[in-house]
């Protein structure tokens, strides 16, 4: 268990190794700082190429940062080799050692470090018990014959068996099919809770990030845009990017003109949730914050309705003044070509007309 | 996949013959070709040998081809109803030629030695296997025995195979000798070599010619063979043994002293004197190039190398032209040095022969022999030489063979003869070399085998071992090993010749050998040959 501090990490790929072979102008990681509390799981989410995997490798010690410091429990480990950091890493492609059985994979660390076979066996047994029912059978099989989910369980066990201070997971379940992904996700979460090991969990899937992370870090272009719990990110995004990145379907952003406490959007006039200086702004509305069928609403041309019976809900897709809009509606929402919609003004986000600055967020939902 | 390759060779029916459909040379086709006369004889001429079947277009453009056309036309006037068809076959490659003949699609005539890969014994085996037509009667009909030049006659006596002839003589090579730079020999005041010189003389000469930039001699990969043959290798290393399954046994140890001395002499030149160089990859072309480029002052080869094209790189005439000196003054040629007791044999003149397809009808065979006779001994030869003269007016391009088998060193209509073309020295050298050609041929005395018997490979191996192994070599142990290897190989073979016939033939052969050397090298007979015949051969023959 450990507290991990990542401080002002900068990483540049100066060689031709950069994407496309060209010398990349911007660093892969640009002054990234991050703290992981003891036993906490932080999910790093971002689109591909945002630097999330690089950050993971720097924490693991597989890559050296150009600037900045990595501390484990206050100790500077920036120059420490990966094997000495006591981290365990799980990869997207599992990276189980070929031509070894599950057992061999678990014993690898002990062989490398010249420990006795008894110790390796005892620890493997111990780990198998902790991994739960049916795991022990996997150990006697060749890894090539295991399913993706089974391989990932072995890969996780391979990390646990040597009791790492920190868990690093690099999109561990994205190679699994949807159903397996769901169950494995649950299982990993359970294991993380059980072991209470500090974890960095990298994913490009925000739902997964929400599910796995105690806190979520949203990354873009080598920077961390915001770190926080899901509620913080969802209701109090730091900027327009985070606001639109988190949430599915994403928030609708409409241009508006503010004047005298009123917002004019696509011909409709709505009261501003907070005082806004006169002039152009943009407002963000999440799908669930729309009221439908109101006479003073904006006119939405409906393109299609996505009905999700399992959720007893539907999403109406369409456009308002050429801007795509998604509106949450009841499952039995009738098929119409047009729809009058109006936001719940208390849940509207306000952004500057240009740039990503956030002028107003509704804050956490007051449920009670 | 070697097995496959091999089978294609052996299987007549597999259709592996490198034959493509040919085009009939229509300008020589009979006038009534279209009438479909069934009596037409078609002779397949393959691989542009002995000539490229000319087309009318080529004949117009090239005076040489025109001359050939004329010659062929003259022959066809006398032989109506014969057509020549050009076919594709790699006539100089044993594998391809044998495949074609076996498959019944071979050319009407071909260089006989190719089927035996230039080995006389193997060629005779191939003849007996039926790869060439029996032309015994035709040889009589066309009187080749009378037509060939005197110097070629002894060689010709060795060609009958058990009384039958499968080939006709078509050329003669005056044999091997040593080329040397006369100008350098004179400049350094060295003694010019002459007939009867010894290997010690050669060693001295080579050392004297060596400078920082030029080695005294360059030898082909088989150069080691020459000094050994001069000592009687070949003659003295095989013992007739009619009591054995295979009628020869091999003995390289009895005369170990003879061999050792000359192996050491040869190695001495290369490794001690550093006056000569050789290499396992050096062939005729490489050593000739070394000589013409001034990297070696002496090399061995057959006399034909004198008569190269003066306009082609790395030929001796070209070298003379470049250095602006008469070739006879620049380059000398002398038969190989003799062995310790006067024996010689490395000069080995050889005869080129033409064989004919075994599939030709009696009539077609006659026509084929007639055509080759016409081109070699008859008017065809003269017409072509005259045309060459008219075109080039260069005697060196006309007289390209110092020892023409038909004896024509002067041709009517051409101003000048062989001697004028090349200078008296070279013609003399060729005559001397050709005059050496009378060593008795064992083929003339002992009936031919149907199998070639154990190959010469172990001998070649030892030669290359002695020639190229730089460190110390144990020659006596090698000779012992060679004896064992060769005899072990021989065990696998069975002679097809009757024991008594063989013994009788062998006795006659050795009598002829003794008689021959009695005259040429009496020391050899008294010191080497007679004791050996008495102590080794006689007991073996009587066993």
């Amino acid at each position, binding site marked *: 268990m450990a507290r991990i501090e990542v401080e002002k990490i900068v990483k540049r790929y100066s060689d031709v190794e950069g994407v496309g072979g060209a010398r990349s102008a911007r660093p892969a990681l640009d002054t990234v700082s991050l703290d992981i509390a003891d036993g906490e799981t932080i999910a790093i989410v971002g689109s591909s190429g945002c630097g999330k995997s690089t950050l993971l490798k720097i924490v693991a010690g597989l890559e050296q940062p150009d600037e900045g410091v990595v501390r484990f429990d206050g100790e500077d480990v920036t120059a420490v080799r990966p094997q000495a950091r006591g981290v365990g890493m799980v990869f997207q492609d599992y990276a189980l*050692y070929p031509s070894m059985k599950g057992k061999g994979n678990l014993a*690898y660390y002990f062989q490398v*470090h010249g420990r006795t076979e008894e110790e390796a066996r005892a620890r493997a047994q111990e780990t198998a018990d902790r991994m739960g029912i049916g795991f022990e059978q996997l150990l006697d099989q060749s890894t090539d014959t295991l399913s993706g989910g089974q391989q990932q369980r072995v890969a996780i066990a391979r990390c646990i068996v040597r009791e790492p201070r920190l868990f690093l997971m690099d999109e561990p379940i994205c190679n699994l099919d949807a159903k397996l992904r769901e169950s494995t996700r649950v299982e990993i979460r359970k294991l993380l809770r059980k072991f209470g090991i500090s974890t960095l969990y990298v994913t490009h899937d925000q739902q997964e990030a929400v599910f796995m992370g105690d806190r979520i870090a949203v990354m873009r272009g080598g920077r961390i845009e915001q770190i926080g719990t899901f509620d913080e990110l969802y209701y109090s995004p730091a900027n327009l990017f985070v606001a639109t990145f988190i949430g599915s379907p994403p928030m609708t952003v409409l241009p508006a003109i503010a004047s005298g406490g009123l917002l004019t959007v696509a011909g409709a006039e709505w009261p501003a949730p907070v005082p806004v200086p006169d002039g152009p702004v943009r407002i963000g509305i999440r799908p669930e914050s729309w009221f439908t069928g109101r006479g003073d609403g904006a006119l939405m041309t409906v393109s299609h309705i996505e009905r999700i019976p399992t959720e007893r809900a539907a999403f109406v897709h369409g456009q308002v003044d050429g801007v795509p809009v998604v509106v949450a509606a009841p499952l039995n929402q009738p098929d119409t070509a047009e729809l009058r919609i109006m936001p719940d003004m208390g849940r509207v986000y306000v952004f500057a007309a240009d740039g990503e600055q956030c002028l107003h967020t509704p804050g956490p939902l007051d449920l009670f | 996949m070697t*097995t496959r390759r091999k089978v294609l060779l052996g299987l007549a029916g597999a259709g592996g013959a490198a034959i493509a459909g040919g085009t009939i040379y229509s300008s020589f086709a009979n006038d009534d070709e279209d009438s479909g006369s069934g009596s037409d004889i078609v002779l397949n001429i393959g691989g542009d040998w002995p000539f490229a079947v000319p087309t009318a277009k080529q004949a117009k453009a090239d005076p040489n081809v025109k001359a050939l056309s004329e010659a062929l036309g003259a022959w066809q006037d006398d032989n109506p109803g014969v057509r020549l068809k050009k076919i594709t076959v790699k006539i100089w490659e*044993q594998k391809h030629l044998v495949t074609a003949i076996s498959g019944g699609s071979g050319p009407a005539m071909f260089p006989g030695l190719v089927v035996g890969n230039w080995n006389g014994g*193997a060629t005779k085996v191939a003849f007996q*296997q039926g790869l060439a037509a029996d032309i015994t009667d035709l040889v009589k009909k066309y009187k080749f025995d009378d037509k060939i030049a005197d110097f070629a006659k002894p060689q010709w006596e060795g060609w009958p195979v058990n009384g039958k002839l499968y080939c006709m003589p078509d050329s003669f090579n005056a044999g091997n000798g040593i080329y040397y730079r006369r100008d350098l020999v004179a400049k350094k005041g060295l003694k010019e070599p002459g007939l009867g010189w010894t290997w010690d003389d050669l060693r001295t000469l080579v050392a004297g010619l060596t400078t920082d930039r030029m080695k005294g001699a360059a030898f082909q990969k088989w150069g080691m063979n020459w000094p050994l043959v001069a000592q009687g290798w070949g003659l003295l290393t095989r013992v007739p043994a009619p009591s054995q399954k295979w009628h020869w046994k091999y003995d390289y140890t009895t005369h170990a002293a003879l061999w050792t001395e000359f192996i050491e002499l040869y190695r001495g030149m290369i490794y001690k004197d550093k006056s000569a160089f050789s290499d396992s990859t050096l062939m005729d072309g490489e050593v000739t190039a070394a000589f013409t480029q001034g990297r070696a002052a002496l090399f061995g080869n057959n006399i034909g190398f004198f008569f190269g094209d003066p306009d082609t790189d790395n030929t001796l005439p070209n070298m003379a032209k470049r250095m602006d000196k008469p070739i006879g003054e620049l380059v000398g040629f002398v038969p190989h040095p003799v062995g310790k007791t006067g024996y010689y044999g490395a000069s080995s003149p050889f005869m080129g022969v033409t064989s004919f397809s075994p599939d030709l009808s009696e009539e077609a065979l006659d026509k084929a022999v007639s055509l080759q006779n016409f081109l070699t001994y008859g008017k065809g030869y003269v017409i072509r030489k005259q045309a060459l003269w008219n075109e080039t007016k260069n005697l060196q391009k006309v007289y390209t063979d110092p020892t023409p088998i038909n004896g024509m060193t002067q041709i009517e209509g051409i101003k000048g003869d062989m001697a004028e073309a090349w200078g008296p020295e070279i013609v003399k050298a060729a005559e001397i070399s050709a005059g050496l050609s009378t060593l008795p041929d064992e083929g003339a005395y002992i009936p031919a085998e149907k199998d070639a018997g154990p190959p010469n490979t172990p001998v070649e191996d030892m030669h290359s*071992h002695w020639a190229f192994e730089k460190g110390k070599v144990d020659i006596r142990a090698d000779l012992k090993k060679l004896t064992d290897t060769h005899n072990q190989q021989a065990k696998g073979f069975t002679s097809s010749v009757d024991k008594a016939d063989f013994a009788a033939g062998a006795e006659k052969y050795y009598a002829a050998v003794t008689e021959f050397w009695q005259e040429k090298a009496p020391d050899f007979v008294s010191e080497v040959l007679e004791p050996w015949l008495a102590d080794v051969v006689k007991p073996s023959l009587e066993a």
Partner: protein
Amino acid sequence: MAASQQHTPVEEEAPAAARPGERETAPGPAGGPPASTKPGTQKPGRRRRVETTLFTLPAFLFQLSWGWYPMIMAFVLSFTDAALRRPVQFTGLESYQRIWDDPLVAQSFRVTAVYTVLSITLTFFIPIFVAILLMEMSRRHIRWMMLLWFLPLSGVASTVLFRYMFNAQYGLFQWVATKVLGLPPQPFLNSADQVLFWLVVPGILFFGPGLIYMATLQSIPASYFEAAEIEGAGFWRKMWTISLPRLRPIISMLLIFAIIGSTQAFEFPTIMTGAEGSPGGAARTVVMYLFQLLQQLRYADATALGVYLFVITMTLVVIQRRFFREDPDT
């Protein structure tokens, strides 16, 4: 090899095409499965079988007439005197006996064995390690090395090149030996002890399978090495537990090629050593000797030797297959 490639499709297709047919003749115990037994559904299967046959027929006939027929005939021929233009006579094992007793055959097998071992060690195994080492280099170096290995040198061109390089008088190697390294003139191909080694050397650079290894290594995801690195594995352990196991299938395949290739070595030694395998036959491989037998018109003996070589090559390949199948995990 071409045979197996051509016929893989047949082997794969045949069972697939046969399956519907089986169903037709043996209806299921529960009264027959419903839809699948309808004639309509079988049609594609049948047609497929006909098409398969039609498509493979030319290849099959070609293989039969040019591949198998000559091979079988060669085998038959080795028991005869293989006379060319007269009826062949059955000679039993005479050729086999003669070849067996020939000391030069034994020698040529020894030469081939040494050549094979040298060739496989130097041009087969060394490139594996070199390729693994190279993968540790920067990407730029990797690219250059791959280019070098991929140089499209024709066999003949490089053979001519190497003949020049080995020339004892003015060759490049001699120059390096005497002028650069200051050694006395080296014999290279003129020494019985060295000739095989020098014959194999060019293969390291130009004919080696290095490029294939590098391509395979490049296809191994970096995560495998990273996982091992995190567990503290060094270079050798990574090579042993990741690179080599991942290369294993390709090694297995290439090793068969290498065995077949070097037991049948012919062209390069022939050209480089002047056909005789000099000096002293130290470089005369089995196939070179076989070729000499052909030149002596000893077809039956040559075929028998070919059969011996085939048996030995086949044995080696079978042993190789065994060895590579001894995999604890499969």
